[in-house]
């Protein structure tokens, strides 16, 4: 079985500062990795995903994430955040070769951007 750990339940940051949201996972097989964002009173939206190839993945809104297989991590980063980035961010994993049938989400990290 797979599991996802997002250790930081909340990350406060000032506008224009860099941010990193941490995600670690546990799996006995290779996995696909995803980051989703949930803005207030909305559903989740895909930010970026790692399926194969380059371990540095770029997503929407200036976010990027790096897959580190040895550390089983997929941390999300942005060099300069905006107020509009205030949202809940969910990391998720899905074991390969299951046709994306076993997606498992973390508990989420709330990013709070203040002026």
């Amino acid at each position, binding site marked *: 079985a797979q599991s996802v750990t997002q250790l930081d339940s909340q990350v406060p940051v000032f506008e224009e500062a860099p941010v990193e949201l941490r995600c670690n996972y546990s799996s006995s097989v290779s996995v696909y990795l*995803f980051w989703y964002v949930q803005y207030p009173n909305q*559903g989740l939206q*895909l930010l970026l995903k790692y399926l194969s190839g380059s371990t540095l993945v770029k997503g929407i809104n200036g976010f990027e994430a790096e897959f580190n297989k040895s550390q089983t991590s997929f941390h999300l980063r942005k060099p300069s955040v905006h107020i509009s980035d205030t949202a809940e961010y969910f990391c998720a994993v899905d074991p390969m070769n299951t046709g994306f049938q076993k*997606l*498992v989400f*973390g508990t989420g990290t709330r990013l709070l951007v203040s002026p």
Partner: protein
Amino acid sequence: EADIYQTPRYLVIGTGKKITLECSQTMGHDKMYWYQQDPGMELHLIHYSYGVNSTEKGDLSSESTVSRIRTEHFPLTLESARPSHTSQYLCASRQAGTGNTGELFFGEGSRLTVL
């Protein structure tokens, strides 16, 4: 922009009432899902469907039921609501087959409060 819609967005009802949460998508996706979301918790899969007349229970036990009579429609029903059913319910869909890149498209959610 995702074309998946949930109604109602917010619902407050008394114990013992029957409720149906509606979910419709216009993307022609075969695969549809219902997740339950509580604050500080991971999203839990409660039901899924891989096509018309196909429904399965997810990882989290739920007293709700679902139906899939049409591709675009995946309603969730609670025959007798209880306070323990208070939660946010998220509907999602994705493509099947070669078009499946793992991305889930989410509705905006239905927040249910049972008094």
